[in-house]
C-alpha cells in the first residue's frame, strides 16, 4: 500500500519478510551517494506482486530453484563430478555468496558475475560444456545459488582492480543512449517513484536477480533486463556478459550496497 513515508517519492512502507527472514528493502544512503535513500524495486510494486515474492509457496520462480537443486546434484562432464561433489550442501556452501558478486577473479583478470563463476566451475572443474547466459539451466542455478544469500546485504569489493570497473559502470549509467537519448539515471535517479505510462519507476536495483517477471512469464537474468531497458530507449544493447554489462552490474552492486538479496524476486 502507498504509505505515509512516501514524502520524497512514491513507494510504500511495507516490510519484506520471507520465511521469517527480514530483508532490507530500504537502507540509508552513505554521504555522497546520488540517492537520498536506497530503496528496492520491491517497494514500488503492487501489494499483489509483493505478496507473491513474500511467500515461497506462491513465488512462481521456485519451480526453477527446484530444477537448480536437481542440476546441483547431477553429475555432468568428463570429470564425472556434480556441483555437490565439491561444494556439498548448497545451503551451507553457498550461504551469502551472491551478495559479494561481481567478484574479482585473479586468474581471469576480470570481475566474475555469478554466471561467469558457475561456467568456470563447469568448464574447468567438471570438464563440462558451459551453459548459455539465458539458458534454463543457468537461470535455475543462479536462482538456487542466489537464494542462499537471501537477506544478506549486497556488498562487493570496491577497491583494487574492481575500482576501474565500477568507475566504467558509473560512466555508462550516466551516458545517454539510443534514439530516445536517455541515460539510466534519467529514469532511475531523476524520476523514480513516478509513473511512466503503466510502469512505476523504481531505482533500478539488482538485488533480486535472476527475477521472475510476469512480462517474461519466467525467470530472466540481470543482463536481460539491461538489454530490455536499452531497447526501450531504442539503443543497440550491449551483449549479455559483455565488459559493459559486467561494469554496469558492478556499479549497480555498489549503488545498492546494503539492500538485502531477494533472489528470486518477483516483478511485473
Amino acid at each position, binding site marked *: 500500500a502507498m504509505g505515509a513515508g512516501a514524502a520524497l517519492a512514491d513507494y510504500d512502507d511495507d516490510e519484506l519478510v520471507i520465511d521469517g527472514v527480514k530483508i532490507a528493502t530500504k537502507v540509508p544512503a552513505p554521504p555522497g551517494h546520488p540517492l537520498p535513500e536506497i530503496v528496492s524495486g520491491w517497494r514500488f510494486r503492487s501489494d499483489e506482486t509483493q505478496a507473491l515474492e513474500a511467500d515461497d509457496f506462491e513465488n512462481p520462480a521456485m519451480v526453477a530453484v527446484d530444477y537448480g537443486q536437481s542440476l546441483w546434484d547431477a553429475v555432468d562432464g568428463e570429470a564425472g563430478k556434480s556441483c555437490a561433489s565439491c561444494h556439498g550442501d548448497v545451503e551451507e556452501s553457498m550461504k551469502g555468496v551472491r551478495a559479494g558478486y561481481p567478484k574479482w577473479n585473479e586468474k581471469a583478470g576480470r570481475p566474475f558475475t555469478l554466471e561467469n563463476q558457475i561456467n568456470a566451475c563447469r568448464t574447468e572443474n567438471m570438464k563440462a560444456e558451459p551453459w548459455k547466459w539465458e539458458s534454463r539451466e543457468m537461470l535455475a542455478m543462479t536462482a538456487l545459488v542466489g537464494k542462499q544469500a537471501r537477506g544478506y546485504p549486497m556488498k562487493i569489493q570496491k577497491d583494487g582492480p574492481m575500482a576501474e570497473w565500477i568507475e566504467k559502470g558509473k560512466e555508462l549509467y550516466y551516458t545517454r543512449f*539510443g534514439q530516445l537519448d536517455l541515460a539510466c539515471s534519467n529514469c532511475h535517479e531523476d524520476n523514480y517513484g513516478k509513473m511512466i505510462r503503466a510502469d512505476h519507476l523504481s531505482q533500478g536495483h539488482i538485488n533480486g536477480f535472476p527475477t521472475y517477471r510476469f512480462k517474461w512469464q519466467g525467470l530472466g537474468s540481470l543482463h536481460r533486463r539491461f538489454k530490455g531497458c536499452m531497447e526501450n530507449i531504442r*539503443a543497440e544493447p550491449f551483449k549479455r556478459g559483455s565488459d559493459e554489462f559486467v561494469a554496469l552490474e558492478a556499479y549497480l552492486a555498489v549503488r545498492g550496497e546494503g539492500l538485502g538479496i531477494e533472489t528470486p524476486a518477483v516483478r511485473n
Partner: protein
Amino acid sequence: MAAPRILTAAALTAALAGGAWAAETAPAEVRFDGSAVPQRLTDAPGDPARGRAVFIDRKLGNCLACHANSDMADEPFHGEIGPPLDGVADRWSEAELRGILVNSKKTFEGTIMPAFYKDSGFNRPLKKFAGKPILTAQQVEDVVAYLLTLKEE
C-alpha cells in the same frame, strides 16, 4: 524550408493529402529562431485528429508515457514525468511548440524529453532506427496542430 516552393498541381494535391510528395524540411535543415521553429516542416497543414493518435501511439509519439492529458481521460495510464499538457496552447505559441517537438533540448536544457525530429548525433541507436527521426515531418505538424487545440481559456 529554405525558400518558398512552387508546386505543380499534382504535387500540391499529393501534399494536401499528406502523401509522400509533400515537400518537407529534412531534420538537419530545420531553421530555429532561438528555440522556436516558425516555419512548417511540410506544405500540408497539420491534422489535429491524426496528431492526437500519434500522441497516444506507443510506437510513435508515446507522449502519454510522460504527460497526463485530460483530453484523453478515456485512455488508461498517463505518465507523471513531464507537466500535464492541459492548456498547453495558452502557454506556448505554434512556433514554440514546434521547436519543443523538433528538439526540446533547445527549450529545456538537459531535459529527459526526446527530440522527435532529429536524425543524427545519437549514441548506439538501434539499427532499425539509425539515421531516422522518431516522427516524420508530417507527424510533427499533426501533433503541433493537435497541441494547438489544448486550450483552457
